[in-house]
Each structure stands twice: as C-alpha cells, then as structure tokens.
C-alpha cells in the first residue's frame, strides 16, 4: 500500500499540469464572460478544476513525505501555496454554488495569480534555480576571460551548493567559499590545482550516472558538457580564486566539445590492437578520458624508430605519458613528439638520444617532465630545453652534463627544475 502511495506521490509531476491548465482556461473564460456581462460557467467545470487542484496538492504532499527530499524555502513556499490553492479552489466551488458570482470570480482571479509563483517554485526544484533565464544569461557571458567569482562560483551555487553549502554538508564537503573548496571533504581534497584528471570533483562528475558516487545525484539536474569543460579549464589553469583564466564562452565551447567527442570516437579498438599485440602497455590515465599512458617496458629491447613510429602513429592525439626507456630509438624519432599535442611526461632513460635529438623538442607546448637519465646528452644539448614553455622537471643523472652547466642553465630557466644527483 505504501508503495502505491509513493507512486501516487511521484505522479505529482504529472498531475500538477491539470490545475495549471484548467484554472488558466477557467480564468480566461470567466474574464471574457465578465467583459460581456454574462453569467459564470456551468459548475461542472469549477468542480473539475477543484478536483484537479486537490489531486495535485495531495500527491505533492505525499511526494514531500518521501525520505531524502530536502527542506528549503523554495520547497516550503511551493507547499504552502499548493495547499492554499487547493483550499481556495474549494472556496471557489462553494461560492459558485451559493451564486455569489462576484466573490467567486475574485477568488478565481487570486488563485490564478497564486498559481504563477507556485508553479515557478516547483519548476525551480526540478529544473534548477536558473532554468528559465539561463540561455539569456549565458548568451551574455561569451567573453575571452572568466574568473572564479563570475563563472565558477555561480556554477557551483547552481549545481552543488544545495547539498554542499552552509545548510547541508554532504560528505563533509562545502563548495560555497574558496576556503571550504580548498578544505575538501571526507574523501580528501576536492580539487587539485593544475590537475583536472586528479581532481575528485571532476572525477565524480565524470562517473557514469548510475554510479553511486556520481555527482550531482542521478535525480538532480546534471552538468552540461560545457559546464564540465568550464570547471576543467579553471582547474587546469590553476584553480585561482582571483586571477582570470582563458575561457572562450558558450558557443565556441560547444563546438569544441563536439570536436573532442568526434576525436574520441576515432579511438577504435583497431588502433590499439597492434600496440597490445606488441606487448606495449596502454592505459587510460583516468576513468572516462581518452588520455593515454603508453609504456614500452616489455618489448623495449626490440623497439627501434620505425616500430615505435608505426605503433604510435594511430594514437598520437591521445598520448599524455610516454615511456620509451631502454628502447633502441635514436634521434631520428624525436620529431614525432611534436605530433603529440598533449604529451606531458616523456621518459627516454637509457636510450641513444643525444643533443641532436633534443633540438627537436623545440617549443613543445605541454611537455612538463622529461627523463634523460643515462643518455649521452650534454650541457649544450640541454640548454636547448629553455624554449619549452611548460617544462618543469628534467632528470640528468649519469649523462655528460656537468654540475656547472646545470647550475648556469638553472639560472637562465628558473621555472624548470634540472635534477643532476651525484
């Protein structure tokens, strides 16, 4: 029986449309009748309207009784107005029956007015606070830069703060102020600046909808791809709460997302089969990403330039971490890294790479970790790495590099850490 009642409660989202339609129609008909000094409509129509209002109010009340439904002012006012309208509709019916046309029409007018906020509050609960005006707002927000306060805070407020804010702190997490965001929740830190793939916040959002850890919860309004992209861009840019970060805005962004999705589709099983058959380790860096870590540890002794090139060719776009340590590659292979637009970590330990090859790393935009341990590179060669904009760490043990050479280079390129342990 309780189950049936629960189902009845959930039908609120269906029933509620009946009083909305009937009362507005009734109002309109009575308004024209009043203009033409005609009498009221037959009572059966008023009775129908009253019945529909009662149906919506009872089902709504039952829905609210379900455990886990939140309490806030929107809910509270929606409920109050709903009950008021149900009672008002009974009053309407009674006035109609008593023949008090004037009072009947006034009450009806009041009811129709009350339906507007009642319906709107209901909509806010199911679709989110800004559902109606969102397209207008977003159209205005196309700009070259975004900031935490203009873009991130409103997004978190709309999608997360209801449960992770001052009123509720599910999972001991609050996302309403910078301090709380940095504090994280019971599962650890929520965001890792500069590292979207390592940020719990994004990981949860990207989980499949049916996963119990997915956020926002299944029944709540979900983030749009562009909103996820916005969060990702912000975290990637360092998750600063003051500084602006580049954000191309709504329309272009949608296009970019579409492009990325197309690219993902190109990651056909066919493309990875040769890698796996050659016993090369291929692993996505995180759930729901096409970013790959590729490791040649197993077949390294046989992997020359031609083989590596042939195996990597189909997946160049996806390589973020690449381990070519102890392979038999030469400087000839180096230009290939320029064709990996997302490459961040490159391990060339114990290979025949020399200064000649390093020249070809040139201005790689994303490379941030480079392992040159036990190669033949020299001070001259590594000085060419100054031009790499994202480079953070270079390992140089057991190379021809000298302490003096590294120290002077370190001064010229302070953003990169050159590590030469003796």
């Amino acid at each position: 029986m309780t189950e049936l009642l629960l189902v009845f409660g959930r039908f609120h989202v269906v029933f509620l449309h009946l009083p909305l339609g009937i009362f507005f129609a009734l109002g309109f008909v009575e308004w024209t009748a009043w203009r033409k000094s005609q009498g009221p409509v037959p009572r059966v129509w008023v009775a129908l309207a009253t019945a529909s209002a009662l149906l919506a109010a009872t089902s709504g009340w039952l829905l609210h009784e379900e455990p886990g439904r939140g309490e806030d002012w929107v809910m509270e006012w929606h409920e109050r107005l709903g009950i008021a309208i149900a009672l008002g509709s009974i009053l309407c019916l009674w006035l109609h029956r008593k023949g008090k046309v004037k009072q009947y029409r006034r009450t009806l007018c009041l009811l129709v007015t009350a339906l507007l906020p009642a319906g709107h509050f209901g909509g806010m609960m199911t679709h989110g606070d800004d559902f109606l005006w969102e397209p207008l707002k977003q159209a205005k927000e196309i700009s070259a830069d975004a900031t935490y306060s203009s873009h991130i805070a409103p997004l978190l407020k709309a999608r997360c703060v209801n449960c992770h804010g001052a009123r509720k702190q599910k999972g001991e997490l609050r996302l309403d102020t910078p301090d709380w965001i940095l504090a994280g929740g019971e599962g650890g830190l929520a965001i890792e600046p500069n590292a979207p793939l390592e940020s719990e916040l994004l990981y949860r959002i990207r989980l499949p909808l049916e996963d119990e850890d997915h956020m926002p919860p299944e029944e709540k309004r979900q983030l749009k791809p562009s909103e996820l992209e916005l969060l990702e861009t912000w975290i990637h840019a360092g998750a600063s709460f003051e500084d602006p970060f580049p954000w191309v805005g709504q329309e272009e962004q949608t296009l970019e997302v579409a492009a990325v999705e197309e690219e993902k589709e190109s990651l056909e099983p066919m493309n990875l089969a040769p890698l796996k058959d050659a016993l090369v380790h291929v692993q996505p860096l995180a759930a729901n990403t096409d970013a790959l870590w590729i490791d040649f540890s197993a077949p390294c002794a046989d992997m020359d330039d031609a083989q590596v090139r042939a195996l990597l060719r189909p997946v160049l776009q996806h390589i973020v971490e690449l381990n070519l340590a102890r392979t038999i590659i030469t400087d000839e292979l180096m230009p290939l890294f320029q064709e990996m637009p997302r490459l961040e970590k490159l391990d060339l330990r114990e290979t025949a790479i020399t200064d000649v090859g390093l020249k070809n790393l040139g201005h790689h935009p994303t490379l941030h970790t480079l392992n040159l341990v036990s190669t033949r590179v020299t001070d001259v060669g590594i000085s060419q790495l100054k031009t790499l904009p994202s480079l953070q760490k270079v390992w140089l043990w057991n190379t021809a590099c000298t302490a003096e050479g590294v120290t002077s280079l370190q001064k010229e390129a302070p953003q990169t850490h050159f590590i030469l342990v003796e």
Partner: protein
Amino acid sequence: MSPPFPPDPLQERELMLTRRRFFGLSAHSLGAGLGAMALQSILPKSALAATPTLGPHFRPKAKRVIYMHMEGGPSQLDLFDYKPGLQDYYDKDLPESIRKGQRLTTMTSGQARFPIAPSIFNFNKYENNQDGVWLSELLPHTAKLSKDMCVVRSMHTDSINHEPGITFFQTGNQQPGRPSFGSWMSYGLGNANANLPAFVVLISQGIGNMQALSARFWGSGFLGGEHQGCKLRSGKDAVLYLNNPAGVSREDRRRMLDLVGELNEKEYERSLDPEVRTRVAQAEMAYRMQMSVPELTDISTEDEKTLAMYGDDVHKPGSFASNCLMARRLAERGVRFIQLYMRGWDQHGNLPKEIRAQSKAVDQAQSALVKDLQRRGLLDDTLVLWSGEFGRTVYSQGTLTKTNYGRDHHPRCFSLWMAGGGVNPGTVYGATDDFGYNITENPVSVHDLHATLLHCLGFDHKNLTFPTQGRDMRLTDVFGKVIPGLMA
C-alpha cells in the same frame, strides 16, 4: 533479494555465461570508458586474463609500489618514536592510567610487573620540511632521507599477533583468504611490463626471532590466480628450471604452448572455470619470463659505485641489500607491486643486540634504494612503504637491566615511513603519549593507510571492487578514509 542458488548445473552454466558477460561489461564501464573498452576487447590471446583489469579512477601520482614489510614488528621506541622523558621512568611500573586494562599477549600478561624500558639508543634530530624529525642512531643512512620521508607515528592495528597482523596489513582483513594489496594492484592496473609478473615477492632472512611467512600473504584470494604474487627465490637462481631442457628449442616450446592453449580454451568453453584461463596466462608468463628473468637478475651491468651504495651484502643473493637492488631493477622495468619482506624483528628478548644487527642489515640498503630511484627520476611515481605489522611495548618483557630488555607486541601505536609518489615529503604525521603507548594525535588505521595508498595510485578505495559471495569486495572492506595529511 537474489534468487536462490539454482540446483540445476545446466541452468547454473547459463547463469555463469551471463554473469561473466555482465562482469566483463561492468568492468568496461567502471574502467576508463572508451579507452578501456578499446583495450579489453582486443587483448591478444597471450594476455587473456580470467579477470580484466580496470584502470585508475583518476590520474595516479604513483605508478608502482615498493612495500618493505618488516616481519615481526620493529620497535618504534628504539627507531622512530623519540621519548626522552622515559629515562626518568627506568624500571618503574607502567601507570595503570596509561594501560587502562588494554589486552596484552599471553607472553607477558602473566608478568608480575610491567617495568618501563627506555630505549638505550640515542636519537638525533634531522632537518625535514617541517621543524625536524628525531630518528634513532640505528638508522644513520635512512636519516639521510629525512627530507623525502613521511614518518607516521600514529599507526594502529586491530591485531596483536603476527599471522593475523601481517594478513591484516596485506589484505585488509585478519582472516586469511582475501587478496593481497599487490593482487588488487595487479587487478586494478595490470602490468606495465607484460614480460614480468605484476606482483613480485622477495624475501630476506633476518637475524633474530623469525616468524613464518605464508604464501597466502601474497595470495590473490577471489581475484584469480594470475594476480597472485610471484616469489622470486633468494638463492643463485631467482627462478628454477628457466632454461629449456636439452633438445627442446624455444620454437618447440612455443608450439607446445599453442597446442595446450587450444585444448585449454576448449576446456574453458566447456567448464567456464576461470582457473583454466589463469593457467594459460601463467604458462604464457613463464614462457616470457624465460627471456626476461635472466636479464633482470644479471647485475653485472651495475657499476661499482651503485653496488657500493647498497652495501657489501648486495653481492649475497637474498640479502636485504640484494633484494633492494632487485626492487630497483624491477621498478625500472615497470613491475607494478614489489613486495620485500625482511624477517626477524620479533625482539621479545635481547632487543638491543638484535635490533642493532637487524637495523644494520636494512639501513644502508633501503636508503640506497630510495636515493637510487630518486636520481633515476623514478621516485616521483614510485610509492615506497616501510612498515611492520605492529609496534612493541614500552615495558620490558622478561628481565630489565641497564643494557638489556625485550619488548612484547604492541598494536595500540607504532611507526612507519613512506616516500615517493604522492607522499607528503619531509613530514611527521601523528603523535603518541609520553610513554609511546597510546595515540594522542591523528590516528591512522590500516584501512586508512590502504585508502590513502590507493588514492595515490589513482583509485577511489570505495570503487575498487570485485563482486563475489554476493557483494562488492574491497581492500578496505567497509572501512578506511583517505588521509590528506599524508599526501603531497
């Protein structure tokens, strides 16, 4: 409610089919979306596994683990947890307000007195990234890692004896039978080097009282045999019978394996027993190890300076120094989980003499291992963990003299250290009371440690699961929370 187990074997077989398909599919969606799906559907026959690997949930800080287990329970009071105030309490009874009636082992519960035994070893303060760390004179080389180590002084465990204690540390459960940490890694991440097992075990014999090390400590439980730890032998040959017998060429061996593989595949289709596929995978692994192990264990390519770093013992196969060097070589080659055991920390009596010898056997080598990984650029993504299964009591077991004492098992607090991938370097976490008996600050349970290590390895510990016996099993069971203070 799940339906009752079907009595009809044919019906069961059909269910098994759908179940396997279901698990396969759920592994895809759990894994890494498109990427993993692409990966798993095209596994070459040689890499067929009974249980597919999942891939990390988020980008890992660490790609591999070197776990040095100090079997027996090293004394935190003589190594890591400096309690200078205890000198004044020499031979006085442990106050009841500290012990609070907590359980003891039967080895000391019958003692008439619990006389406090201050450590006879000096401690020195070393610079770290906070206000310094006190370490014992027994670990002069390890102390050089003070800026890399995260020393945890507030570990506690549920177990007071070795067997359940080690089992708990390795599997997250005191009862034997669950998969070992390394097996979870093999299942969750697979192996970066298909020519070597994902989970390798190396054992060193200690100096003093040694407890048994059962193979189930590195068992894979319900995860399938190919995720089990592979123990390399300590003697001259790491793996026996590596060479083909006279008259059998590698090609012959290949043809034999192909034929047996076909037969096994038929058997698998008939019985749907995942162990059949495990057997195939193991045979293929053994075939590849015939090539990879000689290269792995050939240390003639190591230069003299490197060998000297690890100490003289490095030339003795099976010594802790030799195993540390092997651990580095395994890490270099992409092995996921390297489990080192050092036996002999169970110092119930003659502790000062034994712990001195025991510490000497590990100190230089473990320090060299971390430094060697560091200069090769491997420490950043290698998580190094050093721990026993519990600590030791502040009171003496047996006779206490100025120069000699023993210590019983103590699960209420003990110390461990970590370094490398994802670990907060140069820090001390947690604190104990003046007697080193109870935790006063930031307790860390074994489940918390597991959850945190898994986090560093890219896993949400609540989501690294395997369905068996009607529920999703985890390394952390239904416990554990990630401790941000331990992570960089």
